């Protein structure tokens, strides 16, 4: 399925977030973002199941990673965030507000588009009795060089999709890895990401969320500020 078709069929991540927040009749705030994280991941999962293109999933994962950051901060207020992450959180809030505003601007364009124009002009140089006016220095080589340029650009345009694909594969591998590492004896989340980078942490968190949703692992938190512990669910008999 092509990207554009997908795009028309599914909502974008900001659109979905806004819808979730508006459904709950909440204002756009950090806390309400944390509130709708679950709903957002449900939607993400639905998209994955429907087999939408990797480029779309990538757009959702960018937002998802920010939501996880927000959710973690709300669950674990002691979690230290870098300045950049703080900005990210505020940024998402701001972006949603801008997105909400632009939804109103769209109505203007929609209305104007509907009204058929009253006057029509001609196309550029429409009556074309051709006058032969060739570029002096052009040769076959000039055209060949231009054709090489066209081919090069096409290849560049089509390539980045592979990169996105790799990121998704990375996430899938991570899920499998975590599942292998987990035993039925609970371990702390902190311990799992000790010595790992931020981006690794986000992938880890995403992976855990996936596993929880698939009901393959369970996560517990004794009290609000306690460590989250994760364990593999006992195999059902």
């Amino acid at each position, binding site marked *: 399925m092509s990207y554009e078709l997908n795009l028309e069929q599914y909502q974008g991540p900001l659109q979905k977030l806004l819808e979730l927040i508006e459904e709950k009749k909440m204002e756009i705030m950090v806390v309400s973002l944390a509130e709708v994280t679950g709903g957002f991941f449900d939607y993400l999962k639905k998209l994955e199941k429907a087999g939408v293109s990797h480029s779309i999933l990538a757009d959702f994962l960018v937002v998802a990673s920010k939501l996880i950051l927000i959710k973690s901060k709300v669950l674990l207020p002691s979690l230290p965030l870098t300045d950049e992450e703080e900005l990210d959180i505020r940024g998402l809030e*701001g972006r949603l507000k801008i997105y909400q505003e632009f939804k109103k*601007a769209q109505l203007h364009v929609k209305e104007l588009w509907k009204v058929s124009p009253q006057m029509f002009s001609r196309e550029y140089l*429409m009556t074309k009795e051709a006058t032969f006016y060739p570029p002096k220095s052009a040769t076959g080589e000039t055209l060949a060089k231009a054709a090489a340029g066209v081919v090069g650009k096409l290849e560049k345009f089509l390539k980045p999709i592979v*990169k996105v694909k790799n990121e998704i594969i990375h996430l899938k591998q991570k899920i499998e890895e975590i599942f292998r590492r987990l035993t039925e004896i609970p371990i702390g989340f902190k311990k799992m990401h000790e010595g790992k980078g931020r981006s690794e942490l986000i992938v880890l968190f995403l992976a855990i969320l996936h596993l929880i949703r698939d009901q393959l692992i369970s996560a517990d938190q004794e009290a609000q500020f306690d460590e989250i512990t994760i364990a593999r669910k006992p195999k059902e008999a």
Partner: protein
Amino acid sequence: MERNNNTVAALEALLFYYGEPLDAKKIAKFLDVSEGECGILINELDSKLNSDEKSGFMLVRHGDLFQLATKPDLAWLGQKLVQEEFKEELTPATLETLSIIAYLGPVARSTVDYIRGVNSSFILRALLVRGLVTRHFQEARKNMFEYKVSFNFLKHLGLGKIEELPEFEKYKNILTSFEASQVPENPLPENQENPV
């Protein structure tokens, strides 16, 4: 070459031939007349077309630009002939992207991506192909494209210039009105633009 009242005819033929709007300076240079004379010719053509009931078109002025266009009472005819790309309904994604470009243009793709929260390279490509937006290199950064809505799109909306969009100022400044947000250079996985 004979000139005299033939020059009204030449002006008419020039505008007819060119199709797109032409500014007075270019017209004067082309017809080899002074700008003053050019103004007289323009007025003469204008009143000739207006008074001729058998004429199907008129002179339209947008600022300093002049163009021939069919008379408004013949709109029904144009609507029969209007090109497919302007007849089709706008899909939600198309409308969303077009609105952002209309109000914020000229605008970089990274900003469109930032507001929409999705990678817009494919939809931008589709809009370019459909002729609803145009792009050109930024002044400051020669390897970055900027997008704006096409002249044809404006014409279809019945706008002489982009500033005539409803609430233009409000939305034009929307990015700066939210202090918390900063448009990052490349907020999303970059699909490389096609450098021309």
